C-alpha cells in the first residue's frame, strides 16, 4: 500500500455514486470533478515550484483527490454566465484549497483544515449567488427550500429517500474494508447527526426529520469521504468519536438555525480546529 494507491482508492470509491449522479444530471458531474482535480494538481505544481520543493510529490495523488472531492461537493453551476462561470469558480476553489490551505501550511500532512471544505466554505461566503444555485448534486436545494420555509417564503419541502446515499456508503464501506478509512469517524458523524436531528425534531415543528437530514445535502458523502480525511481528523479512538460527534451535531445545528442551508463544510472546519486538543485528551484517556 503506497500513498498513491491510497489516494486513488478513495477516488475509485466515489465512482459508483458519481456515476449515478451523472446519469441523473449529465456529464457535468464528472467534468466538474475532473476539472477541479486537474486544476488542483496544477496549483500544487506551481506552489511546490514556488516553495522550491521537489515536484515529485505532485504525483502522490493527494492534490488530485482534494480537487476530486471539491468537485463532488460543489453545486452544479454550468448555466451561469461570466463572471460566475464554473471555471472561474473552480479555479478559485483550487487556489484556496491547495495554495492557501494546503501548501501555505506546509504541504501534505501539515494542513490543519480540510482543503476541500475550506474552499467550499470560502466560495459559499465569497460568491453566495452561484453557490446558492439549484444544488442538484448534493441535494442542498431541499435544504435551501427548508430554509426558505423557515423564513416563511416557501412551502414545506416534501422529499424522502435518495439512493445516492447508499452508493456513497458502499464506497465508504469498501474503503473501510481496505483499511483506508476509520469507520469511527464516519459512523460518529452519522450517529451524532441523527441523534441531534431527533432531539431538534422533538422540540421544533419546522425542523427536518432525521431521515430527511440523512438524505439531504452532503451529510452521507461528507461523513464517508470528508470527515475521514486522515490529515485533518484526530487519530486516537476516543478523539475520533468526539470529532465525529462534533461534526454531526454542528451540521444539524447549522442546518436548523444557521443562515446557510448546508452546514457540513462549516462543521468540518470548526471541528478541524479542535483536532489537536481532542488528540491530546484522547491520549490522556488511553494512558
Amino acid at each position, binding site marked *: *500500500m*503506497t*500513498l498513491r*494507491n*491510497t489516494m486513488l482508492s478513495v477516488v475509485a470509491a466515489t465512482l459508483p455514486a458519481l456515476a449515478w449522479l451523472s446519469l441523473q444530471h449529465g456529464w457535468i458531474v464528472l467534468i466538474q470533478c475532473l476539472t477541479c482535480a486537474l486544476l488542483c494538481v496544477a496549483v500544487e505544481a506551481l506552489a511546490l515550484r514556488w516553495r522550491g520543493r521537489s515536484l515529485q*510529490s505532485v504525483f*502522490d495523488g*493527494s492534490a488530485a483527490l482534494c480537487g476530486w472531492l471539491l468537485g463532488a461537493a460543489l453545486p452544479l453551476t454550468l448555466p451561469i454566465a461570466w463572471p460566475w462561470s464554473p471555471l472561474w469558480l473552480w479555479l478559485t476553489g483550487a487556489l484556496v484549497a491547495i495554495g492557501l490551505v494546503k501548501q501555505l501550511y506546509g*504541504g*501534505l*500532512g*501539515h494542513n490543519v483544515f480540510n482543503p476541500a471544505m475550506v474552499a467550499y466554505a470560502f466560495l459559499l461566503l465569497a460568491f453566495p449567488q452561484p453557490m446558492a444555485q439549484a444544488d442538484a448534486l448534493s441535494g442542498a436545494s431541499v435544504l435551501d427550500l427548508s430554509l426558505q420555509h423557515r423564513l416563511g417564503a416557501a412551502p414545506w419541502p416534501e422529499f424522502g429517500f435518495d439512493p445516492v446515499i447508499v452508493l456513497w456508503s458502499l464506497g465508504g464501506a469498501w474503503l473501510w474494508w481496505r*483499511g*483506508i478509512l*476509520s469507520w469511527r469517524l464516519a459512523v460518529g458523524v452519522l450517529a451524532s447527526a441523527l441523534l441531534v436531528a431527533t432531539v431538534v425534531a422533538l422540540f421544533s415543528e419546522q425542523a427536518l426529520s432525521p431521515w430527511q437530514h440523512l438524505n439531504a445535502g452532503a451529510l452521507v458523502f461528507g461523513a464517508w469521504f470528508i470527515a475521514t480525511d*486522515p*490529515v485533518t*481528523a484526530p*487519530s*486516537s479512538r476516543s478523539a475520533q468519536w468526539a470529532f465525529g460527534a462534533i461534526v454531526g451535531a454542528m451540521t444539524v445545528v447549522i442546518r436548523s438555525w444557521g443562515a446557510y442551508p448546508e452546514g457540513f463544510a462549516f462543521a468540518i472546519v470548526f471541528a478541524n480546529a479542535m483536532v489537536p486538543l481532542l*488528540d491530546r485528551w484522547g*491520549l490522556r484517556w*488511553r*494512558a
Partner: protein
Amino acid sequence: MLVTTRQPTQLHIALQQYATRALPQVQAHQHIASGQCLADHPNGVPVYAPRAGRVRSVSAQCITIDVDTDSHEAPALVEPHDHFLERVRQGAMVGLGGAAFPAHHKWRGTPHTLVINAMECEAPIHCDRALLSIRPDSPLRGGEILAEALGIARCVIAAKADFAPIFQSMLPRVPSWELFTPAPHRGIGAERTLLRALDGATLHGPASEQGYIVANLGTLDALARWWDHGFALTHRLVSVGNEQAYWAALGTPLPDLLPDTQDAQNTENAAAHSRTLRVGGLLSGTLSTEHHRGLQAQDNSLSWDDASTAPLPAEPCIRCARCAPVCPEGLLPQQLHWYQHQSEALVALGIDACTTCGACDSVCPSHIPLAAQFMRAKKTLRTQRSIDAMAERAQARFAVRNARQTRRAEQAVERRAQHRQGDKRQDAIAAALAKRRQRKAS
C-alpha cells in the same frame, strides 16, 4: 533447518562488553588452551578461549588467536564458585537475545516468575528455531537450574505458535510449568510487551525489579551447558540468511560465516560487493560495512541487505493513523513522528514505552522509517536526561558547598569573638598566629 559447526582458523575476540571492557590476561605469542581465561573485568564477565591456539596480538579492544588445526571446544579451566550469581558470572553468561546484557546483573533480586521467551518474531533471526532443532531439551534444563537456584515458583514458557508443539511434548517433564502462546503480534518478543500480554503487568524499568526474569532460549541453553558440562559461553548459534545456522565460536570472522562472500570475491560481482551486511533483525539490527570483525555474543543473525529488503523512499506523513492500532504499546506513532525533535512532547506522548519494534513501519503507506526515528529520539532524550541529571546534582552540591562555606565563615567570626573575650595569653597566641599568617601571605 541446517545447523553446522564451523572450525575457525583465526579468532578476533572482542573485549568490549555491555558496559565494560574486559582487561586482557594473556600476552602476544603465548600458547593458550581451549577454555583458558583470556580477559576479565570485575563488573563484566570473563572471556575464555573457544579453541586452543597461539595469541597473535593483544590490544585493548581485541585479542587475535591463530587456532590450532586439531583443537576443539573444551570446558572452561576454572573451579566453579559456590555462590549462584558468581558462578553465572564465571560462566560468562550474557543474554543471547541480542543485547548481551550480563546475566548475573539481570538475575539479581527475588523473582517470582521466570518467563522463557521463545517468541522469536523478527525476520530473519531464527536462532531459537535452530536451537530447538538440535538441543530441544537444553533450554528447559537451563530454566530448571535457574528456577531452582533462585527459588522461583512460577515458570512460564512463552512460545510462538510454531514452537508450541515442541514445548507441549516436553511439558510432562516439568508438570508445574505453564505454556503460554500469545496472539501473534509485531513486537510481542519485547520483554515489556510480552509481560503485558501474559499478566497485564505494566513495567516501568527493568523487569527484574518487579519480580520477573525473562530469559532467551539461547541464554538458558548456555546456562545448562555451563552447569552440567562446564562449558563457558564461548560459542553461540547464529542464523545466516533465512535457512542456515551455525554453531560458531565467538570471534569467528564474519566472512567465514557467509558462504557466498567467497563467490562474490571470485566473480568480482559488483552487485554483490555493494551489498551491506545486516547483523541482527530487519528492524532492530544494524547495517555493517565492516565485515572483517569477529562474531560477538549479541550477533544473533547475519544476512545480506540487498535491494529487496531496502526501504522505499519516505513520503510525507498523512496522519492516516494506521500505525496507531498496530502499536503493541498503545502509542500514537504518527504523533511521535510529528514531534520527533521536541523532547517534552515526546515524553508526554509516552516515547519511553516505545520498544522500537517497527510494527508501525510495516503498515506506513508513506514508508517512513518510524522505528529508526524513535530510536534516534530516544537516544537524544537519554543523553539530554543524563546531562540534566548531572546539572541538577552539580546545582545541589554547589548550594551545599556555599552553605557550608557561609556557615564556616560565621563560625570563625564567632570563635574570634570568643577568643577576644578570653584571657591575654589567648590574645597573644592569636596575634602571633595572625602575624605569621600575614608573613606567609606576603
